[in-house]
């Protein structure tokens, strides 16, 4: 176990390091470039004094690295800062009731997690089943139909799938609402019904990817000599799968799931915009359009952190499920 523990610790340390480097890349990408953010906040007709005051206020006059470490420090203590939009609101209309990014993101973060969770709950069992079946009956009509369908579904942009679903399941057959607006105090089932269309859209995309990767992983496994050996020992087909294939399939399948959940993160952005779903994705896109730097940075960091975390999980899980590492010589 010692060596496995060591490898996992190494991976965790590497993940943390990656996160720090990524935070720097994110900060540098939007701060190193010239551009007058003060003007962006105050609008076109602002006076020079007001701009200077704002710059000093946000700290834009300080050196780059100092700003980075201040930013990183406050993020680590849970203070995500204040968005330009809120500052603009406060500066132009008065009042000092600033809503911090933390407060803005909180409920939206929950919404996005709910959407991703619902998608995963539908997509993971579905795609694993189809993937394993397609691998077992490879070359059959089922396999070919699954292949063509998933290929098409991967190829279609998310918004196309979203609108097709809206068309059939919201407009022609009004089963679900077109716009997904969850409210506080909704029951879980009602919330799930409202979130169903965005979740189904994501399911279509993710299932296709996951099913194809599962199929490839299983096929690769079934071609290995020890599976042939098991069959030549007269072991029943069911036992070949459960006892011989599954323990070895665990690592690749966990990998596939984690990678696709990571893929969900990208998909969430477009889907949230289509359904006007109040999640982080939509917030992010709005911030990008308004060039709201503090908000863009935080959202980007959240997405990147989730992505790194999922990839790290995949890594660690596949180490844990590898018998060669679990039972060293």
């Amino acid at each position: 176990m010692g060596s496995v523990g060591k490898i996992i610790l190494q991976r965790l340390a590497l993940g943390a390091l990656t996160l720090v480097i990524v935070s720097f890349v994110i900060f540098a990408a939007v701060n190193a470039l010239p551009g007058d953010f003060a003007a962006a906040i105050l609008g076109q007709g602002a006076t020079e004094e007001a701009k200077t005051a704002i710059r000093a206020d946000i700290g834009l006059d300080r050196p780059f690295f100092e700003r980075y470490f201040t930013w990183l420090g406050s993020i680590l203590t849970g203070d995500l800062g204040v968005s330009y939009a809120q500052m603009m609101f406060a500066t132009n209309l008065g009042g000092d009731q600033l809503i911090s990014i933390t407060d803005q993101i909180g409920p939206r973060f929950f919404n996005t997690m709910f959407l991703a969770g619902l998608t995963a709950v539908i997509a993971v069992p579905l795609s694993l089943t189809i993937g394993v079946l397609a691998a077992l009956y490879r070359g059959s009509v089922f396999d070919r139909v699954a292949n063509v369908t998933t290929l098409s579904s991967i190829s279609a942009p998310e918004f196309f799938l979203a609108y097709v679903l809206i068309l059939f399941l919201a407009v022609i057959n009004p089963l679900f609402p077109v716009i997904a607006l969850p409210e506080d105090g909704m029951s879980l089932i009602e919330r799930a019904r409202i979130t169903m269309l965005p979740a189904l859209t994501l399911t279509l995309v993710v299932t296709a990817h996951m099913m194809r990767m599962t199929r490839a992983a299983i096929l690769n496994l079934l071609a290995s000599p020890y599976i042939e050996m098991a069959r030549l020992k007269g072991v029943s087909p069911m036992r070949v799968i459960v006892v011989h294939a599954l323990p070895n399939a665990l690592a690749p399948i966990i990998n596939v799931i984690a990678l696709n959940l990571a893929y969900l993160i990208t998909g969430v952005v477009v889907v949230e915009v289509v359904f006007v779903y109040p999640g982080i994705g939509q917030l992010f896109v709005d911030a990008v359009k308004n060039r709201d730097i503090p908000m863009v940075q935080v959202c980007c960091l959240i997405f990147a952190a989730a992505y790194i975390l999922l990839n790290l999980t995949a890594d660690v899980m596949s180490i844990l499920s590898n018998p060669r590492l679990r039972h060293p010589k």
Partner: protein
Amino acid sequence: MSDQLVKIRGLKIEGRSDETWNPIINGVDLDLNKGEVLGLIGESGAGKSTMGLAAMGFTRDGCRISGGSVEFDGIDLVNAPAAVKRGLLGKRIAYVAQSAAASFNPAHKLIDQHTEAPTQHSVQSKAESEKDGIELYRRLRLPDPDNIGFRYPHQVSGGQLQRAMTAMAMSCRPDLIIFDEPTTALDVTTQIEVLASIRDIVEQFNTAAIYITHDLAVVAQMADKIKVLLKGDEVEEADTRTMLSAPKQEYTKSLWAVRSFQRPQKPAVNVGATPVVSVQNVTAAYGTVPVLFDVSFDIHAGRTVAVVGESGSGKSTTARCITGLLPPKQGHIEFDGQVLPLDYRQRDKNQLRQAQMIYQMADTALNPRKTIGELIGRPVQFYSGKTGAEKRKRVDELLEQIELEPTQYFNRLPSELSGGQKQRIGIARALAAEPKFIICDEVTSALDQLVAEGILKLLADLQDKLGLSYMFITHDLATVRAISDEVVVMKDGKVVEQGPKDQMFQPPHHPYTDLLLSSVPEMDPDWLTTLLKERGVDNIGDAAVDKMA
């Protein structure tokens, strides 16, 4: 009840490739009685493995039985329901695969895989079968038989895994075991123990077996009768002694004759002559892992030095040091009395030209996207600067030297050639540089025996004509005997013994050389029995190697 166990009649098997079905086996008969061992031999692509699996009623994916019948103890395996076949497999018919390392499931302990067949077929309970497994491990002379089964496959060495797999095949005391090249992947000294234990256990339980191999000497030790296959057809079948002493068919005779090629020992080199290549006290490492220790030997003009050893002995690493791919940590290489820069990147064009290399796998040694003309033409142009008609003339000359018709082969791609022809192109590419010295890295070990002999003869002729020096890396002592003038024996990165060929093949030897020499199977059917008697049963294999260390 008759004694007949397996009866195959007119078996035809086809394999699917490029959307069409191509024949693999074209109507072969096979008969096997209870307790009998049949050796199935042939070159690669002869259909031996397919035939062996078919005797179990099994075909690999992409293959199908298109005609004929397979009967096992009166049961029609071609048309039997899947459940009936499953009932036989593992219980009455067992299989031992070529690569034990890949054929054991990495996720389970050896003993759990061992007990699977007996418990699944309700032959024994798990506890009984575990006890029986340990007993089988003991009989197969596995070290620490009480505990070895509770390890995972990756924790056990290749030779031991192969024996554990034989034990697993024995777990239900089957009537028939198919051995599919069980020792091909092993070193000679390991091969011996596995062969001996397989033969013992098959005899003890009076199990019938089909033993598939390409090695004639191995099959001579194991089989009661031998069947020779060629491209999916049977050539001939006879009992082992008859087959070895009086083969009927031309093809079989030619297989037997390969071993007879041998060059006479050349006279000793003049004392004081400058060697073409001199390896002097070379010590080398991959990163921090040391692989070579103080290796020294000379190669003289017009001579062949064979470097012999098992895998991991450092023979190929020595070649990498000479070519400069792996600069040694200590020591140096002299060429014609001059010290060569250690790293190939610091050598000039002429130094690079003088030493050429021929590789084991012609498939990876020739760029598959270039025509033969380009492959040979490039070094001609690169070193001599010849272009156009001059270059073409030189390439034609080289093709003639390797006995290939220039006009026919100039525009072909490597994939359109046979294995032996590809290896010849490799030789021509080396000759194109007009070198003094060529390193031949296991050049014949991937080839079928007849073809290999052709290559050896060609190399010998070229040496006589062009005065080349060879360094011949090989693990096969028959090749050493055939072509070398001097022999260097390596083990664990050190030179164990070196000297002229005649002297090396005469006793007294260094103990390791002795082990190596005596472990090479000979065509005599009694060879293994005699050898085991000489060594004493507990002196084989691991024990023998341990004593050496």
